[in-house]
């Protein structure tokens, strides 16, 4: 199976957001891979190896994992990390996040899919910076491919032509069968020890929770793996945005709370002031 995985870099979600005028100030920001995309990379690796035969860590990849990012050239660092985990090669599309919206990113991915012809476009369910949660759905629509979003589990069908994707919904777990090629976006459960069954790794194999560490061997091997650089214009993507940013403001500071002396007072306040009772 050939898998195209998206990997965006985002400002470290644990860092405080700073403002410069009415825009976010990115100076001194620590850039990290979007967590859900890192999970997608891990999922792609688990789908394409036989971990019971010592294949975890990318020793023998059954298929191909290609990682793509749209961003400045510094994203090479995050791409290199994915290559060190075991991905085969990477594509870096030069682009400034400020001049992109979800729709343009989806169109860009469609172009890339037409070139790369993967069996699966695998993505994080959303990027931790904008939390749009739209690109996967839009791309599937443009491609006329089946889609399964928020994957908590993935099981490859026996003939290798479809995936059974488990999604946690309010009433329980919904299993969706998508025939390949397809778009799948992953949720955080996908990195549970037994979330992925690919028909090659023994079904009872348990991975360590979370995305794998890049071993030093992996890191050294990643030096020799190719990162292809391209640009939006080269892919024939015209810059046109559907979403216009009119203003960016920090959420209002929380007002200080009050201490109540008794349960009666609390109930009264909830009834009279908060009006929730």
């Amino acid at each position, binding site marked *: 199976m050939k898998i195209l995985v998206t990997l965006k870099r985002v400002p470290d979600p644990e860092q405080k957001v700073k403002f410069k005028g009415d825009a976010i100030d990115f100076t001194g920001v620590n850039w990290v891979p979007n967590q859900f995309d890192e999970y997608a990379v891990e999922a792609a690796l688990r789908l394409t190896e036989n971990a019971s035969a010592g294949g975890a860590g990318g020793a023998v990849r059954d298929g191909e994992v290609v990682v793509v990012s749209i961003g400045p050239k510094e994203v090479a660092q995050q791409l290199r990390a994915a290559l060190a985990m075991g991905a085969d090669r990477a594509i870096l599309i030069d682009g400034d996040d400020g001049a992109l919206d979800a729709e343009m990113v989806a169109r860009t991915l469609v172009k890339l899919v037409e070139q790369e012809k993967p069996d699966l476009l695998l993505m994080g369910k959303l990027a931790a910076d904008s939390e749009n949660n739209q690109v996967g759905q839009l791309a599937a629509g443009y491609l006329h491919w089946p889609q399964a979003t928020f994957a908590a589990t993935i099981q490859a069908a026996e003939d290798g032509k479809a995936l059974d994707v488990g999604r946690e919904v309010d009433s329980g777990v919904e299993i969706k069968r998508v025939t390949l090629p397809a778009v799948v976006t992953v949720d955080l459960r996908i990195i549970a020890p037994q979330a992925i069954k690919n028909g090659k790794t023994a079904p009872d194999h348990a991975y360590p929770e979370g995305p794998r*560490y890049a*071993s*030093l061997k992996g890191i050294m091997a990643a030096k020799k793996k190719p990162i292809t650089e391209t640009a939006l214009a080269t892919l024939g993507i015209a810059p046109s945005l559907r979403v216009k940013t009119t203003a960016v403001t920090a959420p209002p500071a929380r007002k200080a709370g009050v201490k109540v002396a008794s349960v009666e007072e609390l109930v009264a306040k909830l009834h009279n002031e908060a009006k929730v009772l």
Partner: protein
Amino acid sequence: MSFRGVDYYATDELLTDEERLIRDTFRRFVDDELMPIVAGHFRAGTFPRELPARLGELGALGASLQGYGCAGLGPVAYGLIMQELERCDSGFRSFASVQGSLVMYPIHSYGTEEQKQRWLPAMAAGRAIGCFGLTEPDFGSNPSGMRTTATRTNTGWVLNGEKRWITSGGLADVAVVWARTSEGEIRGFLVERGTKGFATHDIEGKFSLRASVTSELIFEDCHLPESAILPGSGGLKSPLSCLNQARYGISWGAVGAAMACYEEALSYTKERVQFRRPIAGYQLVQAKLVGMLEDITNSQLLAWRLGRLKEAGRARPQQVSLAKRHNVRVALEAARTARDLLGANGVTDEYQAGRHMCNLESVFTYEGTDHIHTLILGQDITGINAFE
């Protein structure tokens, strides 16, 4: 919460992408797998037996050596691994230093092809553990006086003597032992666990490096085959060349311990309120925090520059002495200061500072005491030997 690093002077920019990636990998590994277990091991006085194999899987053991299953890293990347390990515990870093710099390095540098094939891949994977026996009960700072002897026989050698304060001694599958031959020369020997006439005893009652094993090695008519000698070794300069490697790693490791203490003291003093104000709001406390930050920044730049010199093959042993002396001394001070700022909490293992403080006392003493490095540097700049 995961560790974010202390980087007041944007030293991150001095690293290559690859070095940062390696650092971040070990940073996460330490946070996820070592931080949760360290206090328990320190309290119980036990070494985590699963650590060698885990470090081996990640490629951290003998990582700066070439071939034989070793990663072949540059000195800065190697140093960053030591930094992250010691950010957790000096004992864990000690294990890795001994394995890589004091055992794998001399086998790699002074061993036969057969010795290398036998030990290096197994040690890189963490399947075999090594120890380094130089210090004796009566000869610490002055190893040239050592009494352990290696006498020639028809078939090889016979060792007699005692080594003390040997890290990983009781765990080791193989010991690199330094002994004086009948010709008066100091040579290195590989002694395997289970060899007749070779026994080890672990040293109890340490208040430092409790998560690391420290032992005595006893040799009583211990017969070794000819193939046990490291043929390339000769003179005190051989063990000193190993110590030079390990001291380099320690200069990075100390930065890790100091950063852990600073981070802990900073977050604690910002939260802890006394006299209606966070204690970080008092000038006396701020002066201490700033002093720690200044020392850490100096240490980072020293270690980094030394690494780049080493990469270019230009690092002199005296420069390594300066970094070991400075970085360990300020790390020990940082640990003591953090312990102080944490008040009573600082004396429990709920917090790290007390453990680092106790650990760093050993680091201050081993691999050349603070005095010894002072004398090395003093001799270097004045040309006058003040050792004896």
